């Protein structure tokens, strides 16, 4: 990956807070990353680490009643989305950035036909006539390989299986050929075989359109197969970011290491399979220093202050947020 290209999307210092019992607590803190055209960035972490909040913050869909973006910028080809008002944001969503959600069973409106729901994206972002929009929507449904799409165009979501619904979601997201697509655990709720089909479809569509993709998952197996780069999140912070190869071969952060050894792998003994001891600290009681310190076997006194995300000497694209590991130049995995 060359870094000279202007990124399709750059997130800088993004902090999103939620009000819990009258006080604001950061759910994600100082999150920065960028993704280039034709690139897939995987955001990885346990549930509750802030992956989805990051995506919703980019989309401007953080619930206003109790949430806010407290700091940072979301730059879409140089334009800061956090500055836009709701009406301007409506013209960005679905056209420049689309999102695919985790739950295909509940993410489609049960009382509207799937054809209409795909068509709708086009209706608000293009000047197509109703008939043209319908034709384009049908073409999209065929493109995502819905069998006999023409006949099923006016069917309702409850007629479709989870995998088929997720295809409909993908068709909706792709309708206006967005520059960026945010996929929030798009295959987690699906059976393994369907999962593989949907992943293959996404990879194929990405290659075809050259869009950038941010793929949110907790499944490292999927990361290896779909992503170019990975950012690992823990308790609202990005703690390590690297190319897929570097991350899998030389994980630097003790949490990444632990994550990798907590998934079963064919090339290792089952005896090496280790769950991570301890708990993620709750959002209302975040420690001031490194948030992983409590669970970390390498903890030193310095961990009581927050380490910065710093690049490794040998690989500038590989960054890690750890006092112990950042210092040794990435020589010891």
């Amino acid at each position, binding site marked *: 990956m060359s870094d000279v290209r202007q990124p399709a999307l750059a997130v800088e210092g993004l902090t999103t807070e939620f009000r819990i019992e009258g006080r604001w607590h950061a759910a994600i803190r100082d999150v920065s990353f960028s993704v280039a055209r034709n690139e897939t960035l995987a955001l990885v972490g346990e549930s509750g680490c802030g992956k989805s909040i990051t995506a919703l913050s980019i989309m401007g869909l953080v619930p206003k009643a109790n949430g806010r973006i407290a700091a940072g910028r979301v730059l879409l080809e140089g334009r800061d989305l956090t500055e836009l008002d709701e009406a301007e944001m*409506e013209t*960005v*969503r679905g056209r420049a950035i689309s999102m695919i959600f985790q739950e295909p069973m509940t993410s489609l*409106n*049960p009382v*509207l036909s799937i054809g209409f729901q795909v068509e709708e994206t086009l209706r*608000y972002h293009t000047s197509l006539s109703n008939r043209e929009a319908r034709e384009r929507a049908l073409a999209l449904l065929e493109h995502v390989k819905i069998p006999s799409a023409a006949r099923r165009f006016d069917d309702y979501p409850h007629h479709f299986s989870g995998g088929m619904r997720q295809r409909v*979601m993908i068709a*909706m997201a792709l309708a206006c050929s967005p520059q960026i697509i945010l996929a929030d655990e798009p295959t987690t709720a699906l059976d393994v075989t369907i999962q593989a089909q949907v992943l293959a479809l996404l990879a194929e569509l990405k290659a075809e359109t050259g869009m950038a993709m941010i793929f949110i998952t907790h499944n490292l197996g999927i990361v290896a197969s779909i992503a170019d780069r990975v950012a690992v999140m823990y308790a609202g912070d990005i703690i390590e970011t690297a190319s897929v190869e570097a991350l899998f071969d030389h994980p630097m952060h003790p949490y990444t290491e632990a994550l990798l050894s907590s998934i079963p792998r064919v090339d290792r003994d089952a005896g090496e399979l280790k769950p991570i001891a301890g708990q993620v600290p709750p959002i209302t009681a975040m420690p001031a220093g490194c948030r992983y310190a409590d669970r970390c076997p390498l903890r030193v006194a310095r961990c009581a202050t927050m380490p910065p995300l710093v690049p490794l000497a040998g690989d500038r694209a590989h960054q890690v947020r750890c006092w112990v590991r950042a210092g040794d130049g990435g020589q010891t995995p």
Partner: protein
Amino acid sequence: MLTYIVKRLLVAVPTLLAVLTVVFFFVRIAPGDPAFIILGDQASQQAIAAVHQELGLDRPMLVQYLDFMSTVLRGDLGMSLVTHRPIWSEVANVLPYTIELTLTALVIGVVLGLPLGIAAARHRNEALDYAARVFSLLGLSFPAFVSAIMLLLAFAIELHWFPVISEARPGDPLSRVSALVLPAINLGLIMVAYVMRVARSSMLGVLGEDYIRTARSKGVPARVVIWRHALGNALIPVVTVVGLYLGVLIGNSVLTEIVFNRPGLGKLIVNSLNQRDYTMLEGLMVIYAFIIVIVNLLTDLTYGLIDPRVRQR
């Protein structure tokens, strides 16, 4: 959709038959010989027997039952004991007034209640929402006759905006409208409270659903998200409540008709009670049962219209 309608119709028929059966037995089981009620306690044996024969009460229960069912289903409700005119024509005289009143109230309730409920849900925990919630609690707390009396006091007796005794003069459409206003507002406002309450709560539920987030993520304008994506789903419990409330509305219309001295089924029922018009009461029960079964049927059909999932069942 057509098969759904046919299915609902087929379900409605046995319900109606069951309700009619209950009406029949309820009236028979009630203590007190109707003959005594008609003739008084001092009546002679012959007079009682004559009344029994007139009413067909001397026949075996089963024969009475079959006879009742077959005449009712042919649309024949019998004669009034007091006026000796067919019950159906007595009912037909006043039914338009009751229908006019309940339908107007229904329209007021939905047209005001739905947007208010939606607005309250969108502005949850803001001033508008609190005002709406207090109003709806108040509306739920008013017995219909109390609110009717207060409206009457305020707008007819104090302000003289409307006639105290609402009488629609034949051939004078204006008098008919002015006679309708206060009673319809009375029933309508109570219904606004019900509709608003359930619209707010179901809207709050729906707004938290994943598919609303999906619609927003597509860049659908907020207004369209509310009115097309959310409302379609939020309407289902609202329809349920409107259907249920129609039962309450029928009861409340009785009270409203009394307070405003308005002709209608309610006044008919109270007059028959006072006059011990036993066959009339039976006929009215049958009418009410019919109305409720029809309302339930319409409610079910509305579900089918709104929710594609229901149509399949």
